[in-house]
């Protein structure tokens, strides 16, 4: 599969729609252990990103431009924790595919892995600290190993989704060490991290967006 600018534009559009659908649930999750706004941030960020990305001319833009535009518009619209985390993710994705007019399956996995790495660099969270890293880190690893096994993009992303879902589920049993919920001790046990939950939504939407 070759992923071009138009497909990436569609992908950001699909993510924005998914976040709008999931906004309430993400706010509720954040209400339990944080400040109840994670759904607002994700919806706001991705609707800004989708809009900015859609305004790019596919004839004169490359995938890096799409990712950089998404990074900047997401960050400016949101701030919060999600802003720098996803902005860094997209900037890294853009850097990973620099100079390419369209992306192969391998390029896409490079970009995906760069996103996970960017989130971890920016937030300095390790797996097990009850953050979105607990979805992103296993997802990136699963996508990479599926790709090394020679699987096509969609299968790789499905493996990533599966790993992210398990990772997000596992945050229920964790005590938080980063972010707003890190001061709650064992009062957070039993509750899923909202950032991990939104990562699942995001990866799910990416996977579906190439499933056609």
């Amino acid at each position, binding site marked *: 599969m070759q992923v071009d600018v138009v497909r990436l534009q569609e992908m950001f559009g699909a993510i924005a729609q998914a976040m709008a659908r999931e906004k309430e649930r993400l706010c509720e999750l954040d209400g*339990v252990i944080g*400040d*109840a706004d994670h759904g*607002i941030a994700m919806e706001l960020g991705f609707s800004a990103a989708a809009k900015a990305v859609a305004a790019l001319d596919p004839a004169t833009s490359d995938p890096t431009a799409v990712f950089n535009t998404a990074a900047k518009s997401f960050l400016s619209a949101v*701030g*919060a924790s999600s*802003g720098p985390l996803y902005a860094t993710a997209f900037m890294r994705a853009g850097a990973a595919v620099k100079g390419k007019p369209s992306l192969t399956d391998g390029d896409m996995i490079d970009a995906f892995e760069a996103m996970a790495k960017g989130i971890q660099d920016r937030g300095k969270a390790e797996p097990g600290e009850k953050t979105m890293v607990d979805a992103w880190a296993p997802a990136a690893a699963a996508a990479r190993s599926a790709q090394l096994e020679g699987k096509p993009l969609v299968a790789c992303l499905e493996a990533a989704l599966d790993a992210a879902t398990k990772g997000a589920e596992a945050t229920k049993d964790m005590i938080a060490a980063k972010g707003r919920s890190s001061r709650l001790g064992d009062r957070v046990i039993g509750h899923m991290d909202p950032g991990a939950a939104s990562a699942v939504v995001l990866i799910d939407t990416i996977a579906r967006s190439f499933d056609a």
Partner: protein
Amino acid sequence: MKTKKLINAGENAVDEMLEGILSAHPDHLYAVDGMPRAIVARHGPRQGKVGLVIGGGSGHEPSFLGFVGKGLADAAAVGNVFASPPPDPIIACATAVNGGAGVLFLYGNYAGDVMNFDMAAEMLAMDDLEVRTVLSTDDVASAPADQREKRRGVAGNVFIFKAAGAACDLMYSLDEVERVARFANERTYTMGVALSPCSLPQTLKPNFAIGESEMEIGMGIHGEPGVARGELAPADAVTDTLLDKILEEMKASAGDRVAVLINSLGSTPLMELYIMMRRVKQRLDQMGLVIHTSLVGNYCTSLEMAGASITLMHLDHELQRLIDHPCDCAMFRVG
């Protein structure tokens, strides 16, 4: 059931609020051109002076932009409700207040704020603007004493900002302003109690649930759960619970002077704050501590949350002078 608010569209609430603030206080504040979330003091920033930039999410008014003005902060970067501002307005603030002597970023310790201010600082460093960062961590309920650096910054900001802003106004060097800010933070202790939630303008739904007769001791200013939930107690008992923890850490001796802040989280009225103030005075009198100054009212709120916090700043000669130094902000004045 939706929480009733006097707003228009929820997603416009912050920008419309800022328009209203600039309408009401044109002599104190302006927004950087093309950057409505970067609010700068009309008087204050000047050549040779360290620039003080504060900021954070909205919904805590008069924090943070109410403390922008001559003698206090030079600018505030404004985020969405309970969300850190992104780097853009932070950079715009720093650029606007740069007097060639460096800029201090001073804000509460939250992951989101740290990431956004750090990104801004990295970008400013590329333009050779020297930025230092001090995080406020006055909320004693939010981590054990040996992990002070993990604590949140809450209402004690008012005193910490005040001390640092006075140091800037007195033309201290960047090193000295940073030292003062760190010291002010070390000597400031806050603990709060929440009785009822608030609702974000975009959702109009309570941000947490609490029993009809419960209170949450140590709750954060974004509704982050606190250290214990229990039956609502009389004001004196609640005040004692908060003060005990603060005094245990503060280690003050008879004759020492303190600055006191009794802060409403939003809907708790002055009547209740002053009832708490009465008890604080009784307790401090018993210990021989002297109340040098006291602030009672809405200083660091969480929209319409019900509850209050108590802050003590343990003064020494320098902090006392800085706290007394005049300042003239849109929503706060001294001297």
